[in-house]
């Protein structure tokens, strides 16, 4: 066995060329701009933040569905960004992805059984008669019956389509699944079914999950560690307890305060930190701290220095120059 974490992402950058303006070059849109984290098997990292913060781009880069600009992604010590295209297929057997709109990720002309056995075929797994037995077993694993194998994607409900997508991802026996907003489009009752299914599968198969979501209630429920992203950077990262009980960064605190809680008295009592305005453009991020244009406790020096990540605990880091002020002034419960 190799020492070190199962997956390690180091200083990942994904820059896209910006549309050209009247005067020529448009520069770069820094969708992901220096992201680092590690993750072990059997554990879940929640990636949270608003639309445009780079959380999905980070997820796609790990599967090399998007080619990163620079950085390293080490899987058990091997830098997968150095792999030639021809060696990506064996890599993708180890890593799979499921999306928010599961229906759209399934070929409408293929019945469910074929969708799953296709994954096995591509990777040359379970050849011959075993393959059908394997498909049945996989369907059973995600709570679908053999009858579902005959159905076409349009005959499935949203929850069933997500189960099929999970089933197809599991078919190749991956070690890591990137879950990109997997329950955001589902009704709460179905959402709970899928969340519980993902958790059961994780225990059974020792899977690592990167769980990308804007829904902090779900993220709290499923994650061991949480990274909060803002404009291409991780601004705070800690284990679940620390984030939800002692978040330090003003952005994390604002985000938490914006989530509504299904409890009328708690809602009545709590204070909200209302952020003004929208996310600035990642093509032209603010100088210094990227959050300063919306930060409720901004100071003059925030425009001058790009805040380094400060460790508050061995496993809790936050990138803010005024952590103490944030902890004193910004309350979210």
């Amino acid at each position, binding site marked *: 066995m190799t020492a070190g974490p199962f997956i390690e992402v180091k200083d990942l950058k994904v820059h896209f060329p910006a549309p050209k303006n009247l005067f020529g070059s448009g520069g770069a849109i820094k969708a992901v701009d220096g992201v680092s984290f590690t993750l072990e098997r059997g554990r879940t990292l929640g990636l949270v933040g608003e639309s445009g913060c780079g959380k999905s781009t980070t997820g796609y880069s790990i599967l090399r569905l998007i080619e990163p600009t620079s950085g390293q992604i080490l899987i058990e010590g091997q830098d997968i960004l150095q792999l030639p295209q021809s060696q990506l297929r064996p890599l993708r057997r180890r890593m799979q992805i499921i999306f928010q709109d599961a229906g759209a990720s399934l070929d409408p002309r293929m019945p469910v059984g074929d969708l799953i056995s296709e994954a096995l075929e591509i990777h040359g797994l379970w050849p011959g008669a075993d393959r059908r037995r394997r498909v049945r077993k996989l369907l059973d694993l995600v709570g679908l019956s053999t009858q579902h194998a005959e159905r076409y994607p349009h005959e499935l409900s949203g929850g069933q389509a997500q189960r099929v997508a999970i089933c197809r991802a599991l078919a190749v026996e991956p070690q890591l699944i990137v879950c990109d907003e997997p329950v955001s489009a589902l009704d709460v009752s179905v959402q709970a079914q899928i969340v519980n299914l993902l958790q059961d599968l994780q225990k059974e198969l020792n899977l690592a999950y990167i769980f990308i979501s804007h829904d*902090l209630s779900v993220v709290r429920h499923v994650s061991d560690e949480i990274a909060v992203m803002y404009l291409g950077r991780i601004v705070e990262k800690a284990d679940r307890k620390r984030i*939800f009980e002692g978040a330090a960064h003003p952005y994390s605190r604002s985000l938490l305060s*914006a989530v509504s809680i299904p409890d009328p008295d708690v809602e009545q009592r709590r204070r909200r930190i209302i952020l003004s305005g929208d996310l600035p453009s990642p093509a032209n991020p603010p100088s210094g701290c990227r959050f300063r244009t919306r930060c409720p406790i901004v100071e003059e020096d925030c425009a001058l220095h790009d805040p380094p990540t400060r460790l508050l605990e061995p496993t809790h880091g936050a990138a803010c120059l005024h952590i103490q002020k944030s902890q004193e002034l910004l309350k979210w419960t």
Partner: protein
Amino acid sequence: MALLEVENLRTRFATDRGVVRAVDGVSFTLEQGEVLGLVGESGSGKSVTSLSLMRLIREPPGKIEADKLVFDGVDLLKASESTMSSLRGGKMAMIFQDPMRSLNPVLTVGRQLTETLRRHLRLDGDAARRRAIELLEMVGIPLAEKRLNSYPHQFSGGMRQRVMIAIALSCNPRLLIADEATTALDVTIQAQIVDLVKRLTRDLGTAVIWISHDLGLVAGLCNRVNVMYAGRIAETGSVRDVFYRPSHGYTVGLIGCTPRVDRVGAPLTLIEGRPPDLIRPISLCPFLPRCAVAIDACNKTMPAMNTIEAGHAARCHADLSVFHQKGAA
């Protein structure tokens, strides 16, 4: 007198497979300045209820019937199309989930705002323009005067939803219907919009019907809530009644499967299965096949709407007091 009285509203659609009873006997009243939440799964009849109130259901294949449907003294069932058309966008306004589909992409935002003002309030060009600027400022759009000349695609999602709210509020509606109005927005923007709606109801006395599947939003924003299932109201009450003393098996299930950001929960409880097909006639409680707390009586008779205390009622046979808790206050 209540602003809105709905009695036994039934909205059906003729389809190839048969008649779908999308709304099947919904009754409620709404007072001025009250914020009523409608919650339930997709297909529970929340949106069809509100579209029926606005008479925005195409007939046929749809058919709206009710024993009473009165808004601000007007009988909506008998109202002419021209009466309805002056009510919509006037005294009754609606905002939808996707503002991009509600706004006209080839007209400036200013044109779309002033159009409403000129039509409903008969303002002239200058007055309409001044009012439009006021409205955009009220909903928190910076540089309002300049933004009048912008097209919808030049706004962000949150800003577009503000424009929709500005248009909806432009003629001082007595009733605002918001159908999943913040569902597509980021939580920080959602918090801004909810804050805005709260302020407006307080300052202008507008009544609101807030349709959402997000129980948290409803808990924080609404005074009362109707929990809908299979085209009917399963439970109705103040938000405290319904969240702390849920009295329908479905409400208990819904609360149990909603994760909370302020606590690490036990595994989420599940509501297995799917809602019923609304074409088949319903003779027992429609939630029975999925209910975790059903008792013998549930297999025998359809539960009536039982009053639990003043203003709190549910269609359920089971005694759910074990799920009741005091408020956190």
